[in-house]
């Protein structure tokens, strides 16, 4: 465990290390590309929030970043090195974690197994057990339903298990695809608090949120994605305040 970069639990790495998508063109099968020259940069200790209409390519962008989808052209840079085409497994070892959109618990496994699998790459049992205590505290339902089949939990509970699973490692770059979807206000708060905590710890966070006003409030940088390109980007608060943008992408009435 001497090489800090290859240890997923070694915590935040130096501040200049960033995730960057550079001119990424990507798509599915033979269809026309979904991402058409997308560039996004995330610095350590910074939350970058991607917003945009449905089907703009936000999830696709995250999949390219985490290695689930190979780009047709363009580069993915992680901590200053070109990681284009590496498997998710390799990227995870480099400290990158990705929480998928929708529901991705292992339905026919218990909550316990799900959470433990979050630490699949870690052999050190003691460290895992310590993390388990932390996530149990954050999400009481994880502790309460420790032995239940994860697929039987309610939608929001599953989302909590997923987030807990992702927190088992302490990655340095995190991709979150609508982490608050399906969560009640209290749990949404917990998730946003965690994101904030991560940022303070120097983690680079790339966040996709439809709860856009809320997300832009806490993010450092906002990017509006449409048709596979960054439409507008800038300091998050400024974007949130732009009335034209608000009407087109962020919903009519401002947060109450």
């Amino acid at each position, binding site marked *: 465990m001497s090489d800090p970069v290859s240890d997923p639990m070694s915590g935040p790495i130096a501040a200049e290390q960033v995730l960057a998508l550079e001119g990424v063109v990507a*798509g*599915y*099968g*033979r*269809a*026309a590309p*979904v991402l058409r020259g997308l560039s996004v940069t995330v610095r350590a200790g910074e939350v970058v929030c991607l917003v*945009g*209409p*449905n*089907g*703009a390519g936000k999830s696709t962008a995250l999949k390219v970043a985490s290695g689930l989808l190979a780009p047709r052209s363009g580069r993915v840079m992680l901590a200053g090195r070109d990681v284009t085409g590496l498997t998710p497994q390799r990227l995870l070892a480099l400290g990158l974690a990705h929480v998928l959109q929708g529901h991705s618990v292992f339905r026919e496994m218990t909550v316990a197994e799900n959470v433990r699998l979050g630490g699949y790459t870690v052999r050190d049992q003691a460290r895992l057990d310590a993390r388990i205590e932390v996530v149990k505290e954050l999400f009481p339902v994880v502790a309460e339903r420790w032995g239940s089949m994860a697929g039987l939990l309610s939608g929001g509970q599953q989302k909590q298990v997923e987030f807990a699973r992702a927190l088992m490692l302490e990655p340095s770059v995190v991709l979150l695809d609508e982490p608050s979807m399906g969560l009640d206000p209290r749990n949404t708060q917990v998730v946003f608090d965690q994101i904030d905590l991560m940022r303070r710890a120097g983690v680079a966070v790339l966040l996709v949120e439809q709860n856009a006003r809320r997300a832009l409030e806490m993010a450092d940088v906002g990017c509006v994605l*449409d*048709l*596979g390109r960054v*439409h507008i980007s800038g300091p998050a608060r400024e974007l949130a305040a732009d009335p034209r943008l608000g*009407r*087109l*992408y962020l919903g009519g009435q401002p947060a109450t």
Partner: protein
Amino acid sequence: MRIASRAFPLLIAALALGYPWLVPNYYLVYAGALTVMYAAMATSWNLLGGFTGYVSLGHSAFFGLGAYGTGLLVTRLDVPWAVALPVSAALVTALAAGVGVAAVRVRGASFVIVSIALVSMTNLVAQGWRSLTGGSSGLQVPSPFPGLHRGQTHMAFFYLFLALLALALLTWWYVSRSRFGAGLLAIREDEDKAESLGVPTAAYKVTAFALSALFVALAGGLYALWFGSLDPIFVFSILIGSNMVLMSLLGGVRHLYGPLLGALIVAPAGEYFLIALGETQIHLTATGLVLILVVLFMPDGILARFTRRRAGPSIPDRSAGERLHEVTP
């Protein structure tokens, strides 16, 4: 293009009708009748498999029941064959509906198992119930056309099977453009969702199951009358059932003519392998490998190769923001 696509089926139909008169000998009539029989059964199988995605490897159970039903009515009760055939098919359909109620309770893999069990069970019954069926000694059914010589009998059955095929095709076509068919497709995709949208899934599945059994049972009945001797282990054979699946799949389960095309290829190809490689069992390997290749490289069947490829979603040329702006009052 349009005219061609209209004329094509007509041309095929004319060829099919003329076939027995065009070939030089009765063996080819016989082989043709057998192929048409398989085509009818595969098309019928596809009423269940193609729409609902339930893979039955056990349709030979209905084939066998239809055959034995007809044979028994004719030999034991002296019912005229033209009556025995529909009566037996109706009975099998009723039975299939009953079995369907239990069978379609399971999905996917388990249903395959159930269908295999169904053949094994019917085989055991037919074989074990010796006093009724003649058991392993078989059942001999008298020819319905005692006046015709063998070749003429083949001609007669060629047209009977052709009529059955036409009926099966027509049914498939009709179902495919009805709401019933759409409901079946929905079942294939997501049963609970379909149910919540008002598709009575259980009734639909049982109906599809029974309908598909009906034509197979009719084919079985005709087979009994034509072939004249029935033996449980051969009519209740999983291989007959798998042939239907293979043919449908090869041709393409989403297409009206898929199973027919599959039958036209598989039946002669089987002959060919047997004659070319028949000295050893390597012809089984050849068949097996062909099957594997089809599954790997033509999973949607041959016809899918000639029809539209799946295109991904189109990307709008204006941004969502602009479009939204336009429709919002």
